[in-house]
């Protein structure tokens, strides 16, 4: 076919120059993400984008004109530069951390709403390309808003009191934050699959975004009034940590979104598990690096705070991974390495609830090792860590076992229900002692009752050094620890068979041969319907 037959924007009969231009545009966009190209085309046509864009310009214009008219003196002598910048910045921030993420959220939802998603999913586009395309188009929109506000900021920079480093810093933060928030908005849009939830999802999304704007705007104005210590290395160290943390959660959100869009027989778990584990190790590395840098060792006090964070991380990660359906698709089994030793290394990372529990247990083991192998400055700390880990293992193990059982009873029981079950169960055991105590004769007794053992929030604080602490040499402490260890071991035993099956499903070579026989194992026994 000759090259003059078609050009995208201008078919036959169009002016030659236009034609060449559109061919050029065609070439330029050739290697770009197809979703990005589509979204930009749609955005340029959509009234919503054009209207918001014009609105932004008009408001910024009015502000500038108002400033020039009403306080001409401040313009020349006062700190108008900074104040005007902050107003422009506020307008920009609203656009890039509320409107743009909300648009990204809506655009992903509408693929499902309008029934276009399935056709995308069977094209050559990977789920990652789809997610990245949506994110990229959000970034392009942010970029457009930035370009629009630039002349105004240039105007503010000519005035007194304009702080260039601070302004650049805030603009950079807002851009980075816009990417994070857009990614989270995209992730949340992939969670809702039923229409009814989607409407609620959009509403919730909007309020979440407004709340987030309130928090971040407050923080940024704080920066601008208190100033930023650019020459303090400690500031850069913590800024670096924040950036890495935000980046890792953005990656996590991206991976969750990708997994949600991945075909059922594909791998929806390994990526998420890798990122969650990497976050944990990065956190540990940062703690170690920080203590080396400061020349201090981590005290038990610090350790307690760090442990709270780590425990929260693994409680969520464990609840997520351990409630997955115990199933390894034929397709994934085919992709496993031939080497049996390598296969063993693969076990904790492969999809399946039992393997997910194993994955969590291994990391909890690493935490315990750190607690008992390092030399801590107090002797209550290791047993406190042990107790915390026991609670985590108990709750996750029990949740996993119950989920597995409920799935047998009602096939429509989904992983999400299992996760909700764990949360509800945690809340229930946390409040039980409070209720029992409230009903008892002496509700505010400081004495430790065995019923308090049920709640981690009643028991764990007692194991720390403090006023109500149970001393290390108190036999009660040992009883508590024994009871908790027993509970954790029982919870693991309840999953022992599933874990064994989960391991052998990956390791055993025999299953490879049965793969070719064909008929079984295409779907989990209880497939969603």
């Amino acid at each position, binding site marked *: 076919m000759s090259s003059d037959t078609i050009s995208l924007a201008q*078919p036959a009969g169009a002016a030659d120059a236009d034609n060449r231009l559109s061919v050029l545009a065609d070439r330029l966009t050739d*290697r770009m993400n197809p979703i990005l190209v589509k979204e930009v*085309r*749609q955005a340029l046509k959509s009234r919503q984008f054009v209207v918001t864009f014009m609105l932004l310009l008009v408001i910024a214009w009015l502000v500038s004109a108002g400033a020039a008219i009403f306080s001409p003196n401040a313009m020349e002598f006062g700190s108008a530069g900074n104040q005007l910048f902050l107003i422009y910045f506020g307008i920009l921030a609203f656009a890039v951390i509320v409107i743009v993420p909300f648009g990204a959220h809506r655009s992903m939802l509408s693929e499902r709403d309008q029934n276009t998603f*399935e056709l995308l999913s*069977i094209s*050559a586009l990977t789920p990652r390309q789809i997610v990245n395309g949506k994110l990229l188009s959000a970034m392009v929109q942010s970029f457009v808003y930035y370009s629009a506000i630039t002349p105004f900021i240039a105007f503010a920079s000519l005035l007194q009191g304009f702080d260039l480093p601070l302004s650049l810093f805030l603009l950079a933060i807002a851009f980075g934050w816009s990417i994070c928030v857009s990614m989270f908005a995209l992730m949340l849009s992939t969670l809702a699959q039923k229409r009814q939830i989607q409407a609620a999802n959009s509403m919730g999304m909007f309020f979440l975004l407004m709340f987030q704007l309130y928090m971040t705007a407050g923080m940024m104005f704080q920066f601008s009034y208190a100033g930023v210590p650019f020459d303090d290395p400690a500031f850069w160290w913590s800024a670096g940590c924040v950036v890495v943390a935000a980046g890792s959660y953005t990656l996590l959100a991206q991976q969750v979104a990708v997994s949600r869009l991945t075909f059922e027989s594909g791998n929806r778990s390994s990526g998420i598990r890798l990122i969650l584990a990497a976050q944990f190790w990065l956190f540990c590395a940062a703690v170690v690096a920080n203590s080396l840098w400061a020349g201090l060792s981590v005290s038990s006090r610090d350790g307690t705070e760090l442990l709270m964070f780590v425990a929260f991380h693994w409680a969520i990660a464990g609840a997520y991974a351990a409630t997955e359906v115990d199933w390894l698709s034929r397709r994934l089994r085919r*992709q496993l390495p031939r080497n049996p030793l390598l296969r063993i290394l693969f076990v904790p990372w492969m999809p399946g609830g039992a393997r997910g529990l194993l994955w969590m247990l291994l990391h909890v083991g690493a935490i315990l090792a750190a607690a008992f192998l390092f030399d801590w400055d107090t002797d209550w700390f290791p047993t406190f860590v042990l107790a915390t880990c026991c609670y985590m293992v108990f709750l996750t193990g029990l949740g996993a076992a119950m989920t597995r059982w409920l799935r047998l009873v009602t096939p429509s029981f989904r992983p999400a229900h299992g996760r909700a079950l764990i949360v509800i169960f945690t809340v229930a055991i946390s409040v039980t002692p409070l209720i029992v105590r409230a009903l008892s004769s002496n509700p505010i007794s400081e004495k430790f009752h065995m019923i308090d053992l049920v709640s981690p929030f009643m028991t764990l604080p007692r194991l720390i050094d403090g006023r109500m602490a149970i001393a290390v040499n108190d036999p009660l402490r040992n009883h508590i620890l024994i009871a908790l260890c027993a509970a954790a071991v029982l919870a693991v035993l309840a999953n022992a068979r599933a874990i064994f099956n989960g391991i052998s499903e990956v390791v055993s070579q025999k299953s490879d041969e049965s793969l070719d026989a064909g008929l079984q194992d295409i779907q989990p026994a209880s497939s969603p319907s």
Partner: protein
Amino acid sequence: MSESEQPGVKSVCENGDAPATPPRGEATLELRHLHRFFGRLKAVDDVSFKAYAGQVMGFIGPNGAGKTTSMRILATLDLPTAGDAFICGDSVVDYPDRVRKYLGFMPDSFGRYGDMNVVEFLDFYARAYGLRGDRRRDAIEHVLVFTELRKLAEKPIKTLSKGMSQRLGLGRCLIHDPQVMVLDEPAAGLDPRARVELRELIRLLATEMNKTVLISSHILTELSEICDSAAIIEAGRILAHGTIEEIQQQQRRAVGRQSSRSLLLRLARGRDDATTTDRLEKWLLEQPFVGHVQMAAGKAAFELEGDDKAQTELLQRLLSAGFAIAEFHSKSHSLEDAFMNITQGITQ
């Protein structure tokens, strides 16, 4: 873990990087003991059949028979409970990424990005299938020509008529030049004219472009003209499949009239009086291989045991016996008859 493809069965639809055309008559689509259960409901229950390159296969069954469910599995949008399906030799369960390259799927309902125009829409899917530069432009051009949407290229999709919109949908699944096309009730809701035109296009896919086409419908007459073969499904089970003739034979066997054909005969007006009719009846009853004779004024319906040769010989003898024959034709077992006979209206 990557979605990367592993060396596996060599596909008949691929030759290195370039798509290759499989020889006409090659089975490029196969369902093998396919099952899909939704809880207790057996939406697809042990379905097996093949479809061949260069042929249109009908997938016929009443609403709720399991056509869409089967086709979604073929299109790698769903997984079978058991069994497997193969497109160009690749399993839809194990190699969905490869299958997607060979397959064009047109769902029964799908979104169309109403704010885009026709070219932009096709351009987007061409990009989504990884077509770049001139290959993309050629593919779009080809689809616009084939679907005759050239004149509407700049029109926003939401302003297209239903017929044009369906054509665009057909064009969309052709954009990456797939070897196998799976079309789920493409003619549903079209007016008769649009339906005929769409049917022509689909026919061309097989005859001109040597594609394997599987097309579903609950309307039989619609398919009998363009299909080379058909599979009849009801309540998740295949009741009959094969070429149209084979299905008709199966149906005849089913009613116990193997290799016999029903014939209709009408005497010319004015020469169909009662005596002639009586004479005809007597004459017919004397003929070998003729049975089940039924008479009405000037008309006869009967069964003839035998093939076309027997039928011509009978006609010659009729004429030489002096009957003025105005009509003489077989009351064919149409696909519709076959369908009505085979299915029993089971609903789950």
